């Protein structure tokens, strides 16, 4: 093979690869916007959720760590300093007038102060927080098991999801409908490690991490663990709520089932 021919071939291959990759890339970006492509790709989410549910017994616990494993710096992500006037007023008086509302498909709607939540049975756990971005931090959380709250409020038989409405508005749109919210299925809501935490690393939960109350759902990714929880609602359907995908990030394209 002559050197000249080899160079030509290399040039041809390089050009060919560049053209192919540009087509592929442009193609994928266009494809990403097509509804049918989204539907096909979404089929994988269903498959993942069904498979993980089948492999994961309802009681299986996320790994718990020791004090020695605690992260020196636990990264605060998403909203870290909400500027909503109502929330700032609550921060100012130490959440003294703050109450958690529990409603929706329950027999007995609740309205609980922080002291009342603290008086309930608690669970303390040192767990790993996995962000969808790829990093992990280990923190110690103390809070009231969501199962205990739901037991107190007595779920109606048609309740299928628990929805969490939060105080923060990440993109500062000033609109109620753009505030953070999340939802979990009952199986995750009553999991022993699912708690509403009011303490982190033996301190009162700081604002950056969701004061006064943040959700911990230890078998899923960080964005499920809503911060600044103000109100909880039991519902039978999440498709009718806000963007219809079951959460703030879900409405922006992230998976509702965040087990991977």
């Amino acid at each position, binding site marked *: 093979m002559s050197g000249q021919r080899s160079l030509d071939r290399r040039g041809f291959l390089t050009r060919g690869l560049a053209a192919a*990759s540009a087509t*592929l*890339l*442009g193609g*994928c*970006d266009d494809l*990403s916007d097509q509804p049918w492509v*989204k539907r*096909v*790709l*979404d*089929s*994988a*989410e269903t*498959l*993942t959720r069904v498979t*993980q549910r089948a*492999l*994961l*017994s309802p009681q*299986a*616990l*996320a*790994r718990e*760590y020791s004090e020695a*494993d605690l*992260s*020196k*710096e636990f*990264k605060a992500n998403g909203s870290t300093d909400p500027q909503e006037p109502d929330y700032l007023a609550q921060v100012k008086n130490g959440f003294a007038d703050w109450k958690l509302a529990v409603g929706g498909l329950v027999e007995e709607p609740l309205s609980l102060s922080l002291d009342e939540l603290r008086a309930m049975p608690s669970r303390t756990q040192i767990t*790993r927080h*996995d*962000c*969808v*971005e*790829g*990093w*992990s*931090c*280990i923190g110690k959380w103390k809070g009231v098991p969501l199962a205990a709250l739901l037991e107190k409020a007595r779920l109606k038989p048609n309740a299928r999801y628990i929805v969490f409405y939060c105080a923060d508005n990440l993109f500062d749109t000033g609109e109620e409908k753009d505030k953070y919210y999340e939802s979990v299925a009952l199986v995750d809501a009553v999991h022993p490690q699912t708690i509403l935490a009011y303490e982190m690393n033996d301190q009162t939960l700081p604002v950056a991490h969701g004061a006064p109350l943040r959700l911990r759902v*230890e*078998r*899923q*990714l960080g964005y499920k663990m809503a911060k600044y929880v103000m109100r909880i609602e039991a519902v039978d359907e999440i498709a009718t709520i806000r963007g219809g995908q079951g959460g703030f*990030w879900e409405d*922006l*394209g*992230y*998976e509702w089932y965040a*087990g*991977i």
Partner: protein
Amino acid sequence: MEKREVIYRHSGAVRITHWINALVLLFLLMSGLQIFNAHPALYLGSKSTFDDPIMALQAVQDGDKAKGITDILGHTFDTTGVLGLATDADGQPDERGFPWSLTIPGHRDLSMGRRWHFFFAWLFVFNGLVYLVWSLLSGHLRRDLAPSGQDIKHIGASILEHAQLKFPRGEAAKRYNVLQKLTYLIVALVLLPLMLVTGLAMSPGMDAAFPFLLEILGGRQTARTIHFITASGIVLFVVVHIVMVLLSGVWNNLRSMITGRYVIEPAEEKS
């Protein structure tokens, strides 16, 4: 003198799973780099030690100039234009781990990157299972890939032949040589399965279902690092694989992986 001979080299199952795998791995790699770009740093252990990553891609300000920096085990390299800082599709400066041209989607979109990645991850699993089950049942693994004692003995000679870019002819060309066998075995039975296992170990759900995943891999962040390194190993394999295909007769190799038919050139005449 021997004649040119055409043999049937690759079975239908190998050809189909090979090309599906090639396509699937390309999508997994590019969507994987999109996901990596959401936090372009690697750590060891269970948690991220943000001030001490073992590898990080970042953009830093150097005077009035922005630079792309790659940090590996405390050694920093200026990778402006490629890693850490490059230009986007419109030629504007773009602070990203890997450049837009290597990611799916091209623009920054973690949620779509994840959707592409997990969709192709399932295809990868199904395709890989078909290949492995078929390889075991058909004897492909034992007959074509497991090195014989004779092979192992000739490993030194085979390395030398490869280094001189001498490719076997005649009877010897009908089988994979020992380096090919070992490489394909390592890729099919170690590297590709390791991608799946380390991928699953990053899933908080699967970690709760199979806590031993974290034990054997040394923690979630180590698993993520192994996922990245193994992916790099597969990229390296593909590069070498394509170079070898080009050097050892591109049309013959391509035809054999499409139609199955492979031309054996007669062995050189002994003088």
